[in-house]
């Protein structure tokens, strides 16, 4: 899952946390594990505990192609490195893990007992032991067809785990206020990591929706702003997204979501604001902008405007007037988003956003770009056979000149255009095919009638 995103996330975190992490040998992008070196255990803990991609990290004591060789290596492992963890007052546990292969409880116990030579002195404790040792067998990545024997076996001491628990805690299933396009916690936290959010940062989501990205940024210490053109969404008066929910609760809101996770102290404000006409002062600077703009498929891409000429709102209607909206093309949205970011990010700050693509048409030159922004990461998430979206991370490398605030990137590929054209054609083709079949059946029936 989300394999492409790993390298990008690690790069961002290594830079954010100033951690030196070296791969031992060439990192295999298909394998679910990496063998790495850190300068210290505290560096390791800081990095891993902030990561969405990492499940856990063990201090590797032995690594081999088969169990026999592993035992040999482990028996030769320097005793003084093991001793601190085998003190009589430290409880311990040994876990047996088989990646991509199921083994019976009995087999697990047999493997466990093969380690009985280890000079452990403390008591066994299955829940929350002081020391957790792991024996891991790696059977490849095809769970349907694993080999008889593992490709690799590992043994080591568990040191740290990634953010799986936080991801569970933030699950959309239990969140107070969600919308149709709420981003799941795993991807939200990943985006916040790509943006290198740290304590005290000012973070903006200009297409905030139900605020999932704000929750993630706040978890990492960001103070958050959101804006959205959708009045009903921000006031939580849209139709409920949950199938079983008939009506929204009176107190649903983005702020309520943050309160749910004790993050309300990081909530600054949300504004009902058309991104095409932003209300931020010129001098306002954010540390990062994290967002998922509308693609024009499940939500409208719109801005305030009218095609009527010389349109004015009369004085008496002013207080209750709901402004009409017109199409806000995808390339315009991304053009505006990049220009806005170049203007309102601090130097070195990041813009992290999704960009929808048709896979067969994808070219890096069709991506949004700006001379003041450096594209530092670009990871694909496949949505359907023909479409995907890319998580883009831009870093502001210099302040814009006046002309650079009015650039028009006309070569941005417009996803929505092709999406609806493609669907329209298949609908037409389907109708023609159905008409042809009806005609054939009618002719056949007529013929049988004549016989």
């Amino acid at each position, binding site marked *: 899952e989300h394999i492409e995103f790993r390298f990008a996330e690690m790069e961002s975190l290594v830079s954010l946390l100033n951690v030196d992490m070296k791969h031992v040998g060439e990192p295999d992008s298909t394998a679910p594990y990496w063998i790495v070196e850190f300068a210290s255990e505290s560096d390791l803990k800081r990095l891993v505990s902030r990561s969405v991609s990492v499940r856990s990290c063990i201090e590797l004591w032995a690594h081999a192609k088969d169990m026999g060789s592993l035992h040999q290596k482990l028996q030769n492992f320097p005793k003084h490195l093991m001793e601190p963890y085998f003190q009589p007052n430290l409880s311990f546990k040994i876990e047996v893990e088989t990646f991509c292969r199921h083994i019976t409880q009995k087999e697990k116990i047999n493997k466990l007992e093969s380690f009985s030579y280890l000079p452990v002195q403390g008591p066994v404790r299955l829940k929350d032991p002081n020391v957790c040792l792991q024996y891991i067998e790696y059977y490849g990545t095809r769970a349907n067809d694993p080999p008889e024997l593992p490709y690799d076996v590992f043994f080591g001491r568990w040191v740290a785990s990634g953010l799986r628990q936080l991801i569970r805690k933030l699950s959309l299933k239990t969140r107070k206020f969600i919308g149709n396009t709420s981003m799941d916690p795993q991807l939200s936290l990943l985006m916040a990591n790509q943006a290198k959010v740290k*304590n*005290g940062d000012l973070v903006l989501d200009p297409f905030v929706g139900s605020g999932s990205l704000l929750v993630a940024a706040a978890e990492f210490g960001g*103070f958050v*702003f959101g804006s959205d*053109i959708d*009045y009903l969404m*921000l*006031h939580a008066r849209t139709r409920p997204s949950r199938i079983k929910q008939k009506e929204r609760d009176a107190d649903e*809101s983005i*702020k309520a979501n943050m309160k749910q996770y004790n993050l309300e*102290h990081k909530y*600054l*404000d*949300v*504004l*009902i*604001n*058309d991104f*095409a*006409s*932003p*209300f*931020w*002062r*010129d*001098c*306002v*600077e954010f540390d990062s902008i994290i967002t998922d703009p509308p693609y024009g498929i499940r939500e409208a891409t719109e801005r*305030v*405007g*009218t095609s*009527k000429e010389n*349109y*004015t*709102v009369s004085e008496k209607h*002013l207080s209750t*007037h709901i*402004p*009409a909206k017109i199409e806000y093309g995808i390339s315009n949205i991304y053009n505006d988003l990049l220009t806005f970011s170049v203007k309102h990010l601090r130097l070195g700050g990041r813009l992290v956003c999704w960009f929808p693509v048709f896979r067969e048409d994808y070219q890096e030159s069709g991506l949004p770009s700006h001379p003041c922004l450096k594209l530092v990461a670009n990871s694909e998430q496949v949505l359907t056979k023909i479409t995907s979206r890319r998580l883009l991370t831009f870093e502001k490398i210099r302040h814009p000149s006046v002309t650079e605030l009015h650039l028009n990137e006309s070569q941005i590929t417009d996803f929505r255009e092709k999406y609806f054209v493609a669907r329209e054609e298949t609908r037409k083709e389907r109708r023609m095919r159905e008409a042809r079949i009806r005609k054939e059946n009618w002719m056949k029936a007529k013929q049988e009638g004549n016989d």
Partner: protein
Amino acid sequence: MKLLTHNMLTSKCMKAVTVGYPLGINASDVRVSEVDFNPDFIAKIIPKVDWAVLWNAAESIGQLEGLPKDIVENYENDHDFLKKAHHVLLEVDIINGELICPETGRKFPISNGIPNLLLNEDEV
């Protein structure tokens, strides 16, 4: 809407407006609540804020609570000053009211703490 946010907003994007800052405030419901005090964040924010605008905004809704009219020297280490700034920036919340464009007089309603800054079609 917090006073920190008010400090960062302008109606300059409107057709007839040149400066559009600061926006006037009419507050019908103001809520004061306790927000965790983070002195580092406040010290970082103070140089980014227009202090005169902040002071005037707080005064106009009766929420000054002894906030000094000028930023004191060495404010980063002045706990008392930072606490007063923190109160005005983050603990005062305008729940219902209006923001007013200083050049056109146009009113932007605030309801449930959320300002509605949508322009009409003839204002963009």
